[in-house]
């Protein structure tokens, strides 16, 4: 027990919140590190494209305040992975601004290491020309110079190596740009000489907070222990417990494969893992295997602006309209196209989402509609915002007054919940870069402040 390294994970996403009592129970165990993940690609490409966060500044500060005011005075290293939602420089600075504000308010001093994860577009263009950049799956288009140039804020997922260096330099707080989610956790174990397989597998579990417990949630704290031949996880809230199945099943979560995980410079093989329930609702895991890769690849992420959007939400309750909805929507779109015959149809698009009918699954929906009302979202995509607004206004008024032959509700077809009805959404982004790039030297510079 004396040689165990303890890692406290406050929650699955910085700014999601966690019960302070759970976190303090973790602090009582004198952890060797407090590590929290702050980013994900889940919420979509706009975070990278527009340089915005997923959580509010208020929520990020609320979580960080608890972490800093407990960790900094006790000299427990604090690591934030994928700062600010996507880990580009703008997100890192957003996080640094909050950290500095808290340190000042609490009158705390700390040595801060920032590990940047931005990859210059020119570096990607050069590597791409040399054939060192490959898409991660067959449905990702190959990169061209044009796509790379149009992409904002390309980042790469760092491994544990630069974080390890910052720990060796004695940093109190390490703010990482984009990181492979488990890496900031794994860095603590590896720093203390533990097996990288166990360190990474534990990191994979801890990065989601208490999601591996029963009942699972990302909004609660969890504690991990790494020994020499196994690691353990324990819930810090008596309302949850870890079971061998809940922990084993966790590696399924949002990963393409249940027991083969690819990280920067390695593969993690969890096929032979053993999950054992110990006393006190602790689960012990062994046999996680770290297999170093022959070539070192890093995963690049980047987003570019592809269009502008305006949309409108409305309800339809009339049975005759519902019965003929597909036909009506098709003809509304035709009328809009006819009205704007001077505008090329490639400059804009009108899409209808019929909530209550098939909006979630689209053409994969096999259930037959039997409801009495639906929500319709008219979405207009345009090459600029003015065009999207204009087309949406015309599509909305055309739909509202569309004279379907069989209708009895001749005064209007749509129930708008709000006035004004049309919502200017702004730019729409896409993940334009989601590729592996082969590297020879570490592209993640460290800055100390």
């Amino acid at each position, binding site marked *: 027990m004396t040689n165990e390294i303890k890692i406290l994970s406050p929650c699955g996403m910085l700014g999601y919140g966690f019960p302070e009592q759970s976190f303090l129970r973790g602090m009582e165990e004198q952890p060797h590190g407090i590590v929290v993940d702050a980013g994900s690609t*889940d919420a979509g490409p706009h975070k990278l494209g527009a340089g915005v966060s997923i959580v509010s500044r208020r929520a990020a500060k609320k979580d960080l305040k608890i972490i800093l005011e407990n960790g900094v005075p006790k000299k427990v290293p604090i690591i934030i992975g994928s700062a600010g939602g996507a880990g580009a420089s703008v997100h890192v600075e957003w996080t640094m601004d909050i950290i500095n504000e808290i340190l000042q308010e609490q009158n705390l001093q700390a040595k801060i290491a920032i590990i940047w994860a931005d990859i210059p577009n020119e570096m990607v263009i050069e590597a791409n020309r040399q054939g060192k950049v490959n898409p991660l799956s067959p449905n990702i288009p190959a990169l061209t110079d044009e796509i790379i140039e149009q992409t904002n804020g390309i980042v790469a997922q760092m491994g544990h190596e630069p974080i390890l260096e910052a720990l060796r330099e004695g940093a109190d707080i390490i703010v990482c740009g984009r990181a492979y989610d488990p890496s900031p956790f794994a860095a603590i174990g590896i720093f203390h000489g533990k097996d990288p397989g166990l360190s990474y597998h534990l990191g994979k579990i801890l990065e989601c907070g208490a999601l591996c417990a029963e009942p699972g949630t990302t909004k609660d704290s969890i504690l991990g222990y790494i020994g020499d031949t196994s690691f353990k996880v324990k819930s810090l809230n008596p309302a949850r417990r870890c079971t061998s199945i809940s922990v084993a099943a966790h590696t399924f979560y949002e*990963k393409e494969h249940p027991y083969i995980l690819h990280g920067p410079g390695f593969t993690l093989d969890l096929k032979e893992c053993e999950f054992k329930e110990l006393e006190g609702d602790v689960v012990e895991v062994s046999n996680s295997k770290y297999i170093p890769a022959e070539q070192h690849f890093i995963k690049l992420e980047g987003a570019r602006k592809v269009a502008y959007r305006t949309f409108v939400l409305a309800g339809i309750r009339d049975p005759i309209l519902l019965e003929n909805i597909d036909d009506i929507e098709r003809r509304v779109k035709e009328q809009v196209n006819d009205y704007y015959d001077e505008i090329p149809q490639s400059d804009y698009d009108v899409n209808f989402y019929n909530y209550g009918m098939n909006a979630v699954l689209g053409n994969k929906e096999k259930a037959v509609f039997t409801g009495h009302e639906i929500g319709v979202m008219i979405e207009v995509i345009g090459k600029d915002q003015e065009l999207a607004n204009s087309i949406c206004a015309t599509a909305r008024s055309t739909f509202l007054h569309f004279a379907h032959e069989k209708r009895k509700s001749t005064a209007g077809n749509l129930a708008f919940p709000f006035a004004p009805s049309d919502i200017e959404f702004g730019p729409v982004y896409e993940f334009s870069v989601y590729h592996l790039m082969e590297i020879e030297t570490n592209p993640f510079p460290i800055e100390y402040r």
Partner: protein
Amino acid sequence: METLFDMAKVLRSKNSGPFELTMDILFDSVDKYQRVKDSNKITVETICDLYNITENEVRHIVFFDPAMGIKITILRDVSSGTVGDRDVYGAQQHAPLMNILID
């Protein structure tokens, strides 16, 4: 005959990265897991039929005994959060699996 939805403890979908969708079917008893595994209903053909996709769009179908779970990973038609996507997190795309009947 029981539906997969009735037998599973967890039946969910989520992105695995912005270009893939992954479905997890987890069970709370070895019997139920084994019955589904042995039924040979969770196949590439079934997934292609339910999701209107072709064989090469099915990335993995893996049965993982220690976790009593099945994972199915397919390619997304549209990447997460861009024009034409209907489900940014991919969190409601498990529904087509619910009514698979198991003997």
